[in-house]
């Protein structure tokens, strides 16, 4: 379910690192919790993001959720498809519905994130409570 090549945050974001670029999205668990996603607000290319700080919001019909960046760096690309088709976040959260690409300025930050195995254990625990 949760790709092994991703790292995960406790706020349910994922990041895939290729060299010094990270691609960031929200997890399947996050989209399920939110329900039908209707709107996404994202930063612009060139904006700075900081690890553990919010860079955008995802909205369902009756909830707003902040998205936190797993890493620090500069936004190099934004998935503009989501403006027209926010529902992609429900159907394809781990691939087609990536949110932003970031040029990592502190690559070692990734080491503090969870592996897929750890993340799966984390949500199992959360659900059992």
């Amino acid at each position, binding site marked *: 379910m949760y790709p092994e090549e991703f790292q995960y945050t406790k706020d349910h974001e994922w990041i895939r690192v290729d060299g010094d670029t990270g691609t960031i999205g929200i997890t399947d668990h996050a989209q399920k919790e939110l329900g039908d996603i209707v*709107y996404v607000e994202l930063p612009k290319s060139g904006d700075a993001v900081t690890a553990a700080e919010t860079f955008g919001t995802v909205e369902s*019909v*009756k*909830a*707003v959720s902040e998205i936190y960046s797993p890493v620090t760096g500069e936004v190099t690309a934004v998935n503009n498809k989501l403006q027209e088709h926010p529902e992609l976040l429900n159907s394809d959260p781990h691939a087609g519905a990536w949110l932003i690409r970031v040029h990592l300025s502190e690559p070692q930050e990734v080491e503090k994130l969870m592996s897929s195995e750890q993340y799966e254990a984390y949500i199992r625990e959360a659900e059992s409570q």
Partner: protein
Amino acid sequence: MRYLPNSPRSRAEMLRTLGHSSIEELFSQIPEQIRFQGRLDLPGPLSEQEILEFFRQAASQSTSEYASLLGAGAYSHFRPAAVDALLSRGEFFTAYTPYQAELAQGTLQAMFEFQTLVAQLTGMEVSNASLYDGSTATTEAVLMALRLTRRNRVVVARTLHPEYREVMATYLRHLGTEVTEVPYSPAGQLDIAALKKALTAETAVVVVQSPNFLGVIERFGEVAELVHRSGALLVVTVTEPLSLAVVKPPAEADIICGEAQSFGVPVAFGGPYVGFLATRDKFVRQMPGRLVGQTVDTQGRRGFVLTLATREQHIRREKATSNICTNQSLCALAATIYLCLLGKQGLKTLAEHNLAQAHYAASRLATVPGACVPFASPFFNEFVVKAPGNAEVLLRDLRQEKILGGVNLERFYPELRDHLLVCVTETVNKAALDRMVRVYKEFSGQKQARAAASHPVGQEKA
């Protein structure tokens, strides 16, 4: 106790079910020291007949016998009987906010129609489902513009309704927002040179009322160009929306907002009224207030729901676009029914009627010696007249003739001493207007007679 459906026996049965012997036990969690022990000093209990008598007594101490030339943000217009007949349907007036859409399609569809009517009237792309009143709608428009531009200065025409400016000041004082007022020109319109001076790179919004508080219709071409060149947004406030049936709404505005009381809502000593706010599609996510949207049900049938609710306080809490919770649904429904009844032709005819009456009154008053209509600009149903002498005395003379002669502008604009704001709608007949002119003439004549008695002939001032 006629409103309570539980009988003493039912109450006793319910208490028994709960295992209590007295109703007092249900309140036992309230500490004794803070329980109210006495009897509240309140009127009643009154029968329905007594209530009617009480309020009839209050209603008799009113101006219902007077011909009213008062406007200034609250306009007397005839209300067709169908408006109250429909508003009085319990399914409308005893329902709450349409959170459960399947049980509230009536309210939702009516609000969708309200949004459409406001958009059509203002020439804007989108309208919300109403706000409290014109003053708060204007303030909400300003807050919206501050969010959109991320700037922090407000420029406002001094001819925006003085009480609207006060409300805005209450909301803005705590945000550290600077407000600059732009005076009116000798013609009663926004002073363009002063506007130029007031605009800075930090100006978020310019607010202009039209027809403005002096009744004057503004021209927006140059104003809008200046505002937009400086990167600010243009908010236009309309307190008399009937004017929109014959006056072009400014297509250059970014937000058109105001008061829709004129459309079927009683004057009622100042409220409840119904604010509106219309804007461009691209600004919709920064709009305050409720919005109704069209959608389909599981069978593909058209239906309506509250939408884009994530802007609102019940979801976004301290980050909401506004603290407003309710809209002004029943008053918006009154406006919707009213506008449907009058329709395209009726609204236009009524507006022309108001325009003709007001212009008749203004032209007659201008002939009274010592009186004049000082602002030489187009107006709709409201205009300023300079009284031929002390305005308070004149108003008293008019009252003797059962006429409420207008608002003494000195109250809001000290420089406009002895100037009255006069509003003429279809509710004032020609006989009353002619009576008003006669009182002006007599007043003017008495004044000249007094002046002649105390000064040698030929030394009077003009």
